[in-house]
C-alpha cells in the first residue's frame, strides 16, 4: 500500500464525479460499475490527486473521463504497459487500469500476461460483455462458440478464453469476479484489491444492452442457482437454502452435489471450503467453473503476497547506491581508458 493510501481524506461519491456527461448507451452495465467505483473510492482514504485511471480503447475505456481523478485514455490494448511505466516511476500513486474483453484479452493480451507476471501494483478492472461494443458488435475473445455477431452472421467458431484462468496462468497474485450490478460484492472486491500489494485482476460481468443484451442474465437474475458467493472458510454452497454444493472428484474436477445427510446426498464436511490464500491448484479449479456448467464463483477467488515489480526495481537502484555510492557523472564519463593532450597538442 502506498503512503497516499494511509492518509485520512474525507471524500464522498460526488468528489469522484467529473464534469463530463456520461455517454454510454442507456442501460449499459458501465453506469452501475462507475457508480460503485466512485462510491468505493470515496471510502479508501486516498486523495483524488493520488489516484489515476488508465484505460485502453473500447466503451469501458471511456471510464477515466468520468472520474474526477487523474486519467489517461490511451490506445487499444496498451493500458497495462502505460500504467506499468507510470507505476514504476511513481510508486506513490494508486493506479487503476480499465479494460474490456477485446482490449485486454485480444489486442492487449500480451501486455496483460506480462503485467500479471511482473506483479506491478496496478488495479485492473476488466469489463467482460463478450462483445465488441464500440466497433458495433463483433464477437470477442470471450464470446461463446456459435455467437452470431456482425462479423460472424452464421455463428463464431473459435473457442473463448477464460479470463481468470488466463490470469492465473500468467501468475496473477489476485483474481476476483462479480457482476456489474452487484454493488455490495464489487465494493468489497475493490477494497480488497486496493489493499492487495501487487496486480489485482477483477473480471466484471457487464451487460451490453445494444449488441449482446442479457448475456449474463442467467447468472445475474437467478444468482441463487448460478452464483457461488465466496466466503473465506465457508463451504461452497448454492441453490435454495444452500441445497447444492461443490465437491472435488478424485480426478481433481469440481462436481455439483446435493448437500445433506440423506441417500445420494453429500455431507457439508465433504464440500470444498473457500480459502482465498489457498493453492494455485485450488484457485485454478475455481477459475475453471464457468457458466452454464457450473455456478459462477463470485468474490475474491485467490490472492497471494509476492513482492511487486516496482518495489524490487527500486530496491536494485537503492542497493547499487548503497554499494557504489550515488553515481558521479563526471567520473563515469572519465572512466575507461582516458588520455590527456597538453597545450602543445600532443598526447601527454
Amino acid at each position: 500500500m502506498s503512503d497516499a493510501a494511509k492518509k485520512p481524506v474525507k471524500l464522498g461519491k460526488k468528489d469522484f464525479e467529473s464534469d463530463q456527461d456520461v455517454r454510454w448507451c442507456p442501460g449499459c452495465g458501465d453506469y452501475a460499475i462507475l457508480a460503485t467505483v466512485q462510491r468505493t473510492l470515496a471510502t479508501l482514504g486516498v486523495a483524488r490527486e493520488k489516484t489515476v485511471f488508465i484505460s485502453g480503447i473500447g466503451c469501458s475505456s471511456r471510464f477515466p473521463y468520468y472520474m474526477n481523478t487523474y486519467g489517461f485514455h490511451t490506445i487499444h490494448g496498451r493500458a497495462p504497459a502505460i500504467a506499468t511505466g507510470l507505476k514504476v516511476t511513481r510508486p506513490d500513486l494508486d493506479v487503476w487500469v480499465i479494460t474490456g474483453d477485446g482490449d485486454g484479452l485480444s489486442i492487449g493480451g500480451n501486455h496483460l500476461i506480462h503485467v500479471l507476471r511482473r506483479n506491478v501494483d496496478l488495479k485492473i478492472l476488466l469489463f467482460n460483455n463478450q462483445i465488441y461494443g464500440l466497433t458495433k458488435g463483433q464477437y470477442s475473445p470471450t464470446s461463446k462458440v456459435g455467437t452470431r455477431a456482425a462479423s460472424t452472421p452464421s455463428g463464431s467458431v473459435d473457442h473463448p478464453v477464460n479470463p481468470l484462468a488466463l490470469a492465473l496462468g500468467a501468475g496473477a497474485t489476485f483474481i476476483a469476479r462479480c457482476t456489474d450490478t452487484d454493488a455490495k460484492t464489487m465494493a468489497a472486491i475493490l477494497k480488497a484489491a486496493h489493499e492487495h500489494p501487487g496486480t489485482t485482476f477483477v473480471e466484471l460481468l457487464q451487460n451490453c444492452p445494444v449488441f449482446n443484451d442479457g448475456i449474463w442474465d442467467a447468472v445475474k437474475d437467478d444468482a441463487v442457482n448460478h452464483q457461488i458467493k465466496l466466503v473465506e472458510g465457508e463451504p461452497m454452497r448454492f441453490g435454495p437454502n444452500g441445497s447444492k454444493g461443490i465437491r472435488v472428484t478424485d480426478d481433481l474436477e469440481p462436481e455439483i452435489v446435493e448437500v445433506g445427510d440423506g441417500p445420494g446426498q453429500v455431507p457439508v464436511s465433504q464440500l470444498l471450503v473457500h480459502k482465498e490464500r489457498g493453492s494455485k491448484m485450488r484457485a485454478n479449479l475455481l477459475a475453471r467453473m464457468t457458466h452454464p456448467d457450473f455456478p459462477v464463483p463470485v468474490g475474491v477467488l485467490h490472492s497471494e503476497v509476492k513482492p511487486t515489480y516496482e518495489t524490487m526495481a527500486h530496491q536494485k537502484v537503492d542497493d547499487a547506491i548503497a554499494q557504489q555510492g550515488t553515481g558521479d557523472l563526471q567520473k563515469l564519463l572519465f572512466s575507461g581508458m582516458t588520455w590527456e593532450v597538453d597545450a602543445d597538442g600532443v598526447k601527454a
Partner: protein
Amino acid sequence: MTKQHELDRVVIRFAGDSGDGMQLTGTEFTKAAAEAGNDIATFPDFPAEIRAPAGSLPGVSGFQLHFSSSEIYTPGDAPDVLVVMNPAALKTNLKDLVEGGTIIANAGMFVEANLKKAGYADNPLENGSLDAYKLHAIDISALTLAALDGSPLSTKEKGRAKNFFALGLVFWMYGRETESEIRRIHKQFAKKPDLAEANILVFKAGYHYGETAEVFQTQYKVPPARWTPGVYRNITGNEALSMGLLVGAHLAGKPLFYSGYPITPASSILHSLAKYKQFGCVTFQAEDEIAAMGAAIGGAYGGAAAVTASSGPGIALKGEAIGLAVMTELPVVIVNVQRGGPSTGLPTKTEQSDLAQALYGRNGEAPLPVIAAKTPGDSFYCAVEAMRVAIKYMVPVILLSDGYIANGSEPWPLPDLRSLQPIPVNHRTDPENYYVYDRDPATLARAWVTPGTPGLEHRIGGIEKDALTGNISYDPANHERQTYVRADKVARVAQEFGELDMRGEDEGDVLLIGWGGTFGSLRQATEAMRDQGKKVTHVHLRWLSPLEPKLDALIPRFKHVVCAELNAGQLRPVLRSKYLVDVVGLNKIQGQPFKVREVIAAIDGLLGDRVGASKDGETVVTRGEARA
C-alpha cells in the same frame, strides 16, 4: 636489421570466424593506437548470426581500424593491412585490400576442409594468386599451441588464444608498447588467471615472432596526431548515447526511465543503462516494442525523463504509441539505431533508410522533431539535445543513430559537464485557471502537470481534445486548429538550432547535403575535393525535422545540390518539394558506409555532367532513375 619506416596513416582490418575473437583483437589494438596518441576511427562489421558455421563465408567477422598522425574522419576506405584467420576471411575481404597491400594469414587454418568451405579450389597462399600483395603466411595456430606448451589449458582453450598472437604481431609491426596491453589482459581475465597467463604468453610470442622472423624487415611508426588540448577517451556511439541520456536526465533534475526491448543494434544502450543504477536510472525490459513505448509514455506522464530505443522494425511497432505521445504532448525520447531494412533486412549492417519512417511513420498528421547523430561522440550531445527539446516543447523526439556510429568508435574529447546548460522543468502546481492545452506562447508547450498534484486533476488521451480545456472535442474547426498547433510547435524547435555545420563557401558548384552517420566520409571527401580546387561545400544537417531554415538562403546559390544518403533517397524528395530545386541524390544501399573515394568519384561525375546510368554496385549521382 629491422628498418623503421614512418607512416602518416594506416588502415588495418582484422577478419576471422565470428568465434575467432576479431572484435576483441581490433578493440585492443585500437586502445594501443589511442594510447600512442593517434587519431582513430573504427568500424566493426559482423554477421547477424551469433555463430555461423565455423569457417563459412557468412560467419566472417571483421574489425577495421584507421589510425593516423593527422585528423581523420572515417575508418578508411580500404585496408592497407589485412589480418585473416582463415580462408573464408581472405575470400570475403581481399577485394577491399589496397593494391600491393599486406596480408597476414593464419596458414594453419588454410587446410582442405576450410578452403572448400570458402570456395577455394586450391590454397591461395601457395598458388601464386596473391603475388601482387605482401603476403605473410604464418601458422599462427601451431605457434600458439607451441607457446602454450605446458599450460594446464585444454587444446581447445589453447587454440582460442590465437587472436592474441595476431595482436602481438601487429603490436610489433607498429611499435606499440606492450606493458599496458599485458595489464589490460590481466584485468580483463582477472577471474580466470590461467587464461590471462595463456593470452599473455601468446601475445608475447606474437610480438617476438615479429621481432625475430626475417619476413618482417620493417617496423612502421605512425607518430602521434595533433589534438585540441583536453582529456580524451575512446567511445562508441551507443556508449556515448547512453551517457548522453543519463546526463540529459541529470540536467533536467530527473531520474532516467528507460524502457526497451532487445533488438540489434540498439540493445547495448539497454545494457549500458542497466549498469547505471547508482545514478537512479531504472531500466525496464518490456514484453515487446509497443510496451516499451507505452511504458516510456507512462513514465513521462508521471514526470520522469523517459526514453525508449530500438531499430527500424521496433520503431514500426511503436508507431501508434508514438502518435499517442504526439497527441497527448508528452516528452519522450525515441532512439532509432538504424539498420538495413525493410523487414528484418540486414540487422548488423548500417543504413539510413528509416528517415521517412521517422518523419512520416504514424497515422494522421503527427509531426515530431527528428535529430540525427553524425559521429559516435556526437551521439552524446544529440541525446542531451533530444531530451532538452522533448521537455521544453512537450513533444516526443526521435533521435536517429545507425549501426555504423553505434558500434564504431572514435577518440572523444570529454565534455565539461559544468558547461552544459541545465534543462529547466516546470511542473505546474497552480490550479488557478489551469487548462490542459493552455500553451506557452514561445514554445507552444502545454504545462507538464503530473499526477499527484492537488487541484489539477484532469484527463488526457488519444481522442482529439478541445484546444483549451482538453475535453473531448469533435468540432471540425478545433481539430484543424489543433493539427496546425502540433505542427507549429515542431516548427518552432528551429529556435534551438545552433550554427550550421558547414565546410566551404556559401556559394559554389556543389552543395553536398548529408545527415547522420555519413558525416566522416562526406566531410573528408569535401576536404579532398576542395584541396583540388573544386567549389564544393558540405552541409551536414543535425535536425531533419524541422528543416534547417538556413538552407533557404543557401540552396539557390549552388549550381548543383546533392543529397547524400545511405538509402534510395529519403531526404532528397523532402528538399525537392520544399525548395522546388532539382536536388540530385548520392545513394548507397549496401549495408556499408560511403567510401571517401566513392563520394569524390560521384561528385566528379556530376561535375563532368554524368548523372544516372550507374553500373550495379557503383555509387553515382542520380535523379532516382530505375536501376533494374
